[in-house]
């Protein structure tokens, strides 16, 4: 049986599955239920200054029949009294001494930071997460993402925290910034023990077409929310990679957050350098039980690959994420359609013809809807295989023999790059384009 336990910057947890600081960690009741269901850790809903919440708080993006493919909220940090939260943290630790309880914090002054750190340490928290990410409401008061967007301010506050903290400190970053490395580096320079990302992304998920107000609507008005859920995963993975590859950051443990719902998501985050993962939207959708699928899948993956613990494959994909200029220009793939599996929807044809590179034709014989690849036109873009609704029907087949390797960087170094469009070495010079007559053949 693979060992799922982790030691994350000194925070021990029976598995890497943590609840993110959010509504699912609003109370001891929820956190205990979650631990009982199989979660290894929980980052408590952010404790801080007194706030008032609005009614109507969440909005979602439904994609076809999938509810909450994207999700946003305008809820603030906890509105429950600090003393109640501290009491419940203490209680949870009594029942679950081996699970990780991390207190998310957000206050303003140095004195407030020092005081609240002492409070949560006294309550028995295993770690602290600094909420520098919340992109709605709290940032208007100079907290949350307002801090995360100013690396210098962020560094100062991390320093305040590190002056007194006796337990590991995780700095949670906002994705609402051009270069994630800047705040990441500032946090590391400020002395943080670990990082976590991403917090939610500024968003408007939709507009009510009758009241002309953005969702979630509060008495005819709305505001930007924080976007999360499956839709944000690609953004989170990219930012995680940027931190995990950075020479001055990569030795700092990172907790991955952003759209994690299945074991595959978990493995992807680990492969890009996250040694714990945090989940919120999937739990808000399906409840704590969702962790069983994650755990089972992670274990099967590890068994199949022969990994004993998650450190065996932590960051294993990082060396393969490079810059465009280092990609092999001599690699060539071409689409191949399995005619026996094809159902004749011809989505690949129209996607290619209208949306890409005109490399698929439909045979002219009456009634035949099975498309054919025009191999000499196919640039190997993948689009047809992505739109195909049938499993394993269109595959991308390698055509080069793998013996040649040439990159833009190498060509640049060798002074061998095209400088005019008329250069035979230029990529688009022999690009096939159909004629005007072809374009207008259906014109009435």
């Amino acid at each position, binding site marked *: 049986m693979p060992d799922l336990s982790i030691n994350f910057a000194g925070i021990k947890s029976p598995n890497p599955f943590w609840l993110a600081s959010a509504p699912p960690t609003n109370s001891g009741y929820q956190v205990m239920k979650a631990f009982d269901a199989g979660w290894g850790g929980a980052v408590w809903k952010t404790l801080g200054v007194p706030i008032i919440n609005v009614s109507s708080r969440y909005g979602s993006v439904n994609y076809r029949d999938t509810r909450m493919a994207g999700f946003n909220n305008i809820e603030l940090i906890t509105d429950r009294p600090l003393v109640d939260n501290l009491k419940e943290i203490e209680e949870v630790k009594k029942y679950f001494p081996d699970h990780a309880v991390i207190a998310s914090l957000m206050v303003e002054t140095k004195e407030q930071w020092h005081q609240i750190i002492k409070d949560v340490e006294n309550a028995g928290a295993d770690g602290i997460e600094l909420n520098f990410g919340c992109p709605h409401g709290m940032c208007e008061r100079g907290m949350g993402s307002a801090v995360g967007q100013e690396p210098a301010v962020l560094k100062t506050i991390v320093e305040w925290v590190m002056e007194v903290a006796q337990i590991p400190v995780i700095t949670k970053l906002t994705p609402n910034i051009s270069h994630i490395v800047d705040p990441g580096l500032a946090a590391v320079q400020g002395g943080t023990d670990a990082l976590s990302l991403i917090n939610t992304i500024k968003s408007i998920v939709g507009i009510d077409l009758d009241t002309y107000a953005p969702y979630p609507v509060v008495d005819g008005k709305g505001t930007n929310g924080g976007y999360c859920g499956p839709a944000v995963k690609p953004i989170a993975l990219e930012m995680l990679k940027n931190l995990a590859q950075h020479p001055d950051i990569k030795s700092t443990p990172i907790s991955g957050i952003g759209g994690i719902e299945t074991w595959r998501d978990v493995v992807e985050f680990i492969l890009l350098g996250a040694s714990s993962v945090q989940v919120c939207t999937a739990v808000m959708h*399906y*409840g704590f*039980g969702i962790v*069983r*699928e994650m755990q089972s899948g992670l274990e*099967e993956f590890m068994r199949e690959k022969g990994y004993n613990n998650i450190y065996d494959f932590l960051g294993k994909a990082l060396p393969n994420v490079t810059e465009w200029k280092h990609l092999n220009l001599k690699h060539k793939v071409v689409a191949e359609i399995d005619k026996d599996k094809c159902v004749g929807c011809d989505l690949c044809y129209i996607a290619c013809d209208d949306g890409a590179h005109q490399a698929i034709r439909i045979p002219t014989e009456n009634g035949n809807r099975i498309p054919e690849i025009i191999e000499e036109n196919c640039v190997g873009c993948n689009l047809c295989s992505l739109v195909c*609704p049938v*499993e394993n*029907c269109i595959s991308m087949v390698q055509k080069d023999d793998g013996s040649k390797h040439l990159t833009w960087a190498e060509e640049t170094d060798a002074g061998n790059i095209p400088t005019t469009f008329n250069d035979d070495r230029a990529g688009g010079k022999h690009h096939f384009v159909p004629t005007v007559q072809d374009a207008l053949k259906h014109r009435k």
Partner: protein
Amino acid sequence: MSEYKRPTSEAEFESNFAQKKPLMNPTEAYFESSRCLYCYDAPCIQACPTGIDIPLFIKQIHTGNLTGSARTIFESNWLGNACGKICPTGVLCEGACVYNHQDVPPIQIGRLQNYATNHAMKKNINLFSPGEDNGRKVAIIGSGPAGIACACELRTMGYAVDIYEAKEKPTGLTLYGIAAYKITNEEVLDELEYLKNQLNLNFICNHPIQTEADIAKLEANYDAIFLGVGIGPTASLGMEGEDLPHVVGAVEFIEDVRMKHHEMTVPKKVVVIGGGNTAMDAASQSARLGAETVTLAYRRGKESMGAYGFEYKLAISAGVDSLFNAQPVSIHSNGVRFIKTQATNGKLEYISGSEFDVEADLVIKATGQAKHGSFLNKINNLNLDNKNRIIINDSFQCTNPKYFAGGDAVNGGAEVVNAAYDGKMAAIGIDKFINNTIVQ
């Protein structure tokens, strides 16, 4: 009027007996699994006698964790593959699917289940291993689903298990008693082989346990004994003409179909007597074997039939005719004599002078099975109820504490899935008994 031609080859047999729940292809499984809502405290789980975590295994299929999915299934039900195919899912898990409430077709749970278990079986993925030998021995009488489930569970706990089977091949009714369009012989035996390889199950076939001496020997050699003996052959109706050569029991008829396939022949005119699921199976299979007319005769009205609605519909769609309120009186060389009946306040009355004849070259009695009462009575202190069903407690223990029982021998005749559950639970009871932790 039946529409099937008599099958003269295995290919024609397979066509007439096309599987009702064929294996899904990857595209089907992808789309179907994506539809599951992952309900909280899901009604489908509650409706499954073995309590399989259905939303979990479906999500595992969707995320490409087919091995994990199969593990989820087999951990709850040792006959996960057979049950996916032969369970009456329409009245169990799929009947409970919340989509039904909005007239959206329910998730095809049975077929998804097979998609996962088939993956594990075809790739021979080891999901289980025997527990460390604990030096204790258990005998299992009967290798049907209850016996197999009990044996598998005991093996994982480290017990040595011998399974005694009277017939030539194991798996009991799963192989011999299920309509051929629900599961193939190969599928039944593949699952058995798969379990056998992982858990080293020891079957002792062609070895009926019948006499006091047989029983004494088992009692002397084993720490506990599990009775998974099922129920017996078709019961006698005590009717004139019942012993004529063209009269057979439904259980025996179904077994013949399973074993002989296209080499089995049925004459032109078949009458099936009974209104339960076994009657439906016998009638449906007669039609698929090419009988010209198949008449299903039931002594009460349609609404009183014990068969599931979908089983009745399946028989009708195969071309079976039905005859209600007809009580057989006697069987003759060329047919059956019936008398018309009517039910007054639930009590069946015969309408005098209403006798009529239905022509038949073959009469199939699907009117219940005899119990193994005479065998069971040879075991000391083993109490049976008034229907000759074995009495057990919450731990599946019999009144003779060395014996445990489950499946049809206890419930009088139910589904394979019920037997699979009983067998597993009885194993847990046996373990408690042997470790002296049973609560009386």
